[in-house]
């Protein structure tokens, strides 16, 4: 008997499927997100118009990304923002740690940032003895449970208020309640203390405006604004595709981001950061640093098709509509970016030799691409990556690494029998007879976990019609 390779992804999926409670919570939350989005964009023509604009803005920005980044850096420097470049995740973490240490930072607060998940910043800082505190309520909760975010917008879409009530009872010593307002108050009480003491604030970035060197941060709770204004030092971390040419490009992107994420007409807070506090100003950080992360994106940028993945504005809509995500949630993916966009982006960043399994975690139903406000053809990109996983002439890191001899031979035989009519009829006939008695092994076994064996027709269509043709 051949040894079966362990499949951690499939194991995580099985565990997630068995967790009925989390599935029920997630189902409710995602349905709510979808209905809000649909209400917001009830006018399909408006959505189509905005989407076309957003796609063009992002495409243009990606097309001239090197120039834009240069322009941005110059203007940001004029504004007093210190720009640092990080080629890899490790470098980004190192830069941030050095900044904190030099500043003598004691208390670090954070706004929700997916790119900091990508670099594993929290784990890294914790290992060095620092204790960064997540300040967005959902992030605060998931940090208390020591879990990764389950969604790019709603980190705890799989938890009920009862779960949170029990958690707070245990970890914050607050009396049990499942009243959402009171739970939020409990969290706020703890967080206020952290805000007061913090001397370092870390945040992500939603958009960087090249023409003015400003950073745009979008949120609903105000915690990002606090994290970027209260502490003495603000460190923003962004991946390099976040830069857009001009402020005039911002409105459609903001409308689409808030509308697709939560169905809001506008986000509750939009912070525009031009730099540290000025000489006459009484508040704001004294230092603003920006770490710009590449982490394989230049390579993605080089391919015209794959580059489209970088149009993403992290609204989470593709997750809300994905039937796979809905059933297993974000954590099962084992990727900082879950859902369809994660399955497109993460294998490219990590290499297909590490995460070549992700592009196959989809039925290619296309619901993601339909929902995506940035016009990313997620389904086509998944298809492309599946091919990259098998071809040695690919451009993605680790391309060809998923090639298995057995599978390749199967498809080669399939090709042969389907390119030669005689063989096709023959194999069709044989298959029909053979599969009736075939033992349930391999693919057939997987198929029959929940289904009956397919019943092949005694006479296939080719055979039937040959007879008909001969009779004529």
């Amino acid at each position, binding site marked *: 008997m051949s040894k079966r390779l362990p499949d951690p992804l*499939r194991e995580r*999926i*099985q565990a997630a*499927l068995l967790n009925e409670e989390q599935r029920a919570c997630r189902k409710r939350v995602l349905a709510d997100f979808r209905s809000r989005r649909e209400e917001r964009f009830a006018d399909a023509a408006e959505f189509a118009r905005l989407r076309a604009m957003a796609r063009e803005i992002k495409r243009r920005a990606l097309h001239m990304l090197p120039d834009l980044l240069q322009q941005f850096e110059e203007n940001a420097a004029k504004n007093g923002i210190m720009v640092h470049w990080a080629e890899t995740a490790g470098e980004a973490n190192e830069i941030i740690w050095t900044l904190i240490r030099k500043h003598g930072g004691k208390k670090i607060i954070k706004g929700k940032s997916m790119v900091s998940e990508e670099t594993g910043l929290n784990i890294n800082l914790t290992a060095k003895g620092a204790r960064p505190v997540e300040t967005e309520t959902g992030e605060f909760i998931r940090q208390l449970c020591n879990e990764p975010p389950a969604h790019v917008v709603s980190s705890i879409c799989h938890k009920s208020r009862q779960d949170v009530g029990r958690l707070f009872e245990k970890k914050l010593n607050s009396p049990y309640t499942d009243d959402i307002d009171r739970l939020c108050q409990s969290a706020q009480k703890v967080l206020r203390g952290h805000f007061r003491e913090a001397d370092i604030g870390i945040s992500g970035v939603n958009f960087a405006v090249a023409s003015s060197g400003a950073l745009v941060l979008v949120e609903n709770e105000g915690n990002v604004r606090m994290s970027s204004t209260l502490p003495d030092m603000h460190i923003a971390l962004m991946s390099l595709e976040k830069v857009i040419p001009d402020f005039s490009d911002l409105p459609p992107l903001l409308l689409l981001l808030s509308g697709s994420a939560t169905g809001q007409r506008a986000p509750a807070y939009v912070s525009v950061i031009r730099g540290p506090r000025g000489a006459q100003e009484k508040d704001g950080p004294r230092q603003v640093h920006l770490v710009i992360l590449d982490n394989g994106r230049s390579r993605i940028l080089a391919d015209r098709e794959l580059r489209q993945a970088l149009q993403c504005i992290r609204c989470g809509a593709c997750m809300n509509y994905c*039937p*796979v995500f809905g*059933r*297993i949630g974000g954590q099962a993916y084992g990727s900082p970016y879950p859902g369809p966009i994660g399955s497109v982006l993460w294998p490219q960043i990590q290499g297909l030799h590490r995460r070549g399994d992700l*592009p*196959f*975690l*989809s*039925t*290619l*139903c*296309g*619901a993601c691409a339909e929902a995506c406000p940035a016009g990313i053809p997620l389904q086509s990109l998944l*298809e492309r*990556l*599946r*091919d*990259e*996983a*098998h*071809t040695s002439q690919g451009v993605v890191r680790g391309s060809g690494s*998923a090639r298995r001899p057995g*599978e*390749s031979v199967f*498809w*080669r035989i*399939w*090709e042969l029998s*389907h*390119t*030669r*009519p005689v063989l*096709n*009829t023959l194999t*069709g006939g044989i*298959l*029909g007879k053979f599969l009736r008695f075939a033992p349930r092994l391999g*693919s057939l076994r*997987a*198929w*029959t*976990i*929940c*289904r*009956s064996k*397919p*019943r*092949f*027709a005694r*006479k*296939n*269509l*080719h055979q*039937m019609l*040959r007879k008909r*043709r001969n009779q004529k």
Partner: protein
Amino acid sequence: MQISFPVKKAYFLGTCLADMIYPETGLAGMRLLEREGVETIFPLEQSCCGWPAYNAGYRREAMAVARAQLKAFPDPDCPIVAPSASCAAMMRIQYPKLFEHEPDVHEMLQLASRVYELGDFLLNVLQVRYQDQGEPIRVTWHSSCHALRDLDVARHAKALLRQLENVELADLEGEEECCGFGGIFSIRQPELSAAMAYDKIEAIQNAQAARVIVGECGCMLNIAGVMDKLRIPIACQHFADFIWERIGGENV
């Protein structure tokens, strides 16, 4: 492709699944075309559109099979009709992309432009009108992802069903959600595929219908397979079979 009316001749794309597993569906589709006076040709040289390999990430193999179809459907003025939106979408949408930089791109484009999904062809090209001959029945409809999002033809098949007077078309909750087949996905992630299929079956049961009608042999294989294993006495049927039966076509 510019279709000249009246349509005299059409190729029928058997699709590999209909060929091996649901040949009656293929025959019913052909009869529906012939009933409108269209000479329907089933080229025996045809095999498969190539989607299974494309879906599994074997483009080179898929392209070789796609190329082999060129010879099967030679007449440039003859439309090609498929009883499955996934095959039609593969040819219409993917062929032009796959062959973009190949020397035979023009032939492939020409081929792609001739491909129609059966429901779309019946309703919009042939403009059929059906007289229902059957007893009153309540059915429900599942939209396949390719019909819905790639080709936007699911509404055409539904419009055909609505022509049938005695057929009550019950809404299916989550009608537009994938049934969990997804080709290689169902083999690689069988538990997840099953979870999706179970939800679909539950919705079908809740629709209180005698049958669930689909327009895709892949969905049919999945949905019927699960219902059979669970011994749920609801039939899953392709709209071609169903319509042929309703309008009093003799046994295929």
